[in-house]
């Protein structure tokens, strides 16, 4: 027990795990947008940065409580997501993806040019309020949220949109409204993740929220298994920890990481856990056991 507590108290391990949790919360937002609703978003980091800057600026200037700041960050990002969503969610597929990417780039460049955000020098001196406990708690809450959404009428509408938008519309689903709602919720999670990130790293720079970060988040969701919460958890954990484990190869780290990305996609195009249905697996197992039990009973009956 003592060694386990010691393990989590190690500053390096603690930091890496907390960061994984923060990314997980952000990635779950993208999971809702891309995995469940099937809408491409290549600009998730932009919403993360909106949340991060909102929360950080509230902490620095108004000194409101930490949790409220993080929530406000989430709301700001969600609002931005909604504002972008209404006009752009009429677009489909890659067009939507490139629009969100463009939006995130514009956000980044605006943050570089604003005075209040510290511009390209970045924003320093943010208090370190994020810790492993809070992040784990919020991550578990987010996971429960995702499952609740998935099993709700709302979530089923979103899945219907992913499977066939035209058919969903024919079933009476207001696709635009549902897509915007999903987008707003997804970007809210990104904002919360951003707020937590700001209070963990204690320093924000617009360069941290560029295209590469957006694509990294997309990787989390896709490599683990698109549309699956366990997949997102696995993808985020593996991909956040992989660069840490790959530290020993030093400068070849990103080379191996990127080569892994390509090979992973070639051998598991649906992601690590893509197409794996845990509930079905469990039920199958139960059914098999029941069938086995029944069989042994039958055999036993005949013998008597």
């Amino acid at each position, binding site marked *: 027990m003592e060694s386990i507590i010691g393990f989590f108290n190690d500053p390096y391990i603690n930091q890496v795990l907390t960061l994984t949790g923060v990314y997980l919360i952000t990635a779950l937002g993208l999971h809702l947008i*891309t995995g469940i609703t099937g809408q*491409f978003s290549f600009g998730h980091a932009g919403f993360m940065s909106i949340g991060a800057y909102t929360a950080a600026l509230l902490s620095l200037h108004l000194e409101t409580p930490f949790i409220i700041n993080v929530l406000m960050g989430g709301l700001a990002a969600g609002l931005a997501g909604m504002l972008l969503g209404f*006009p*752009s969610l*009429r*677009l*489909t*597929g*890659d*067009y939507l*993806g*490139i*629009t969100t*990417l*463009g*939006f995130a*780039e*514009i956000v980044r*460049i*605006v943050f*570089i*040019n604003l005075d209040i955000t510290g511009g390209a020098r970045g924003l320093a001196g943010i208090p370190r309020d994020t810790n492993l406990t809070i992040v784990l708690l919020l991550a578990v809450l987010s996971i429960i949220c995702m499952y609740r959404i998935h099993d709700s009428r709302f979530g089923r509408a979103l899945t219907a949109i992913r499977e066939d938008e*035209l*058919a969903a519309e024919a079933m009476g689903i207001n696709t635009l409204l549902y897509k915007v709602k999903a987008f707003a919720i997804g970007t809210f999670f990104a904002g919360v993740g951003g707020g937590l990130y700001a209070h963990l790293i204690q320093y924000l720079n617009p360069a941290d929220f560029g*295209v*590469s970060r957006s*694509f990294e988040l*997309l*990787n989390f969701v*896709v*490599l683990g298994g*698109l549309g699956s919460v366990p997949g997102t958890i696995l993808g985020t954990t593996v991909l956040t920890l992989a660069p840490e484990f790959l530290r020993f190869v030093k*400068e*070849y780290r*990103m*080379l191996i*990481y*990127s*080569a*892994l*990305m*390509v090979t992973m*996609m*070639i051998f598991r*195009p*649906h992601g690590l856990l893509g197409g794996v249905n845990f509930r079905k697996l469990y039920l199958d197992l139960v059914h098999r056991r029941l069938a086995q039990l029944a069989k042994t009973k039958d055999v036993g009956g005949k013998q008597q």
Partner: protein
Amino acid sequence: MEQIQTFIQLLPQQLVNGITLGATYALIALGYTMVYGIIQLINFAHGEVYMIGAFIGLLMVVYFKVNFFLAIICAILVCVPLAILIERVAYRPLRGSTRLAPLISALGVSLFLQTLMTLIMGPNAQGFPQIVKDTIYTVGTVKFSLVQVVILLVSSVLMVTLHMIVKFTKVGKAMRATSESYETANLMGININRIISFTFALGAALAGAGGVLVGMYFNSIHPMMGVIVGLKCFCAAVLGGIGSIPGAMIGGVFLGVAEVMGVAIGFGTYRDAIAFALLILVLLLKPTGIMGKPIQRKV
């Protein structure tokens, strides 16, 4: 008032600068639009092909002291097999898979090439030696530098050649057929795989040439130069209507001019945002771009 006057005075000059920049954008945008037209994939590695083209040009000029024309040829000779290899390794196994799988694969290739070039060439910007004399021609109030003339000439020749290939040759016809429908093209005896490879090769040739031209124009290249230019050129392709070759040319030039004008009227710090803002505006007004065909939704 005075500002507006100087702006109008400088307008023809800005237009020339904008069109020159736009011509290089158009060269790269063509690769995006052709590949998207044929396999519906945003080839994120295309920006890196352009970056490698620029570095090959630099190496040839510095170590072999060749002239710019040979440098462009060498860049094309390296970029074409590279793009064919990328398609073969990273995209072909994923054909017929979900939309996102090849996209992630493309991102992986792009990251791989960036890291590789950073390891080989170092992360810093490298100066591109001046291989074209800095002669300046004056026509009225407008000044053309020799580099600008070279860029405009080379890119026009390349674009006209591309247009000829796609419009009038047998392989061009096959490309157009393949982008309409794989199955039908296949039934007509077209080897789909070979046509897709050919499309990548054409795009890479233009990107390689574009890399050398941009190196000559801005005198500086670095391993990350493909990222933002690649995204902007994809925007240009979407602006013009993705899948349309004249669209990509128009989109590229339009973007180049808009960027130069934007900087001229004082949005210098927002330079990279101009492309994306334009893209969002155009997509909202005409979702298929300037020259794009309307999308049909079928049940």
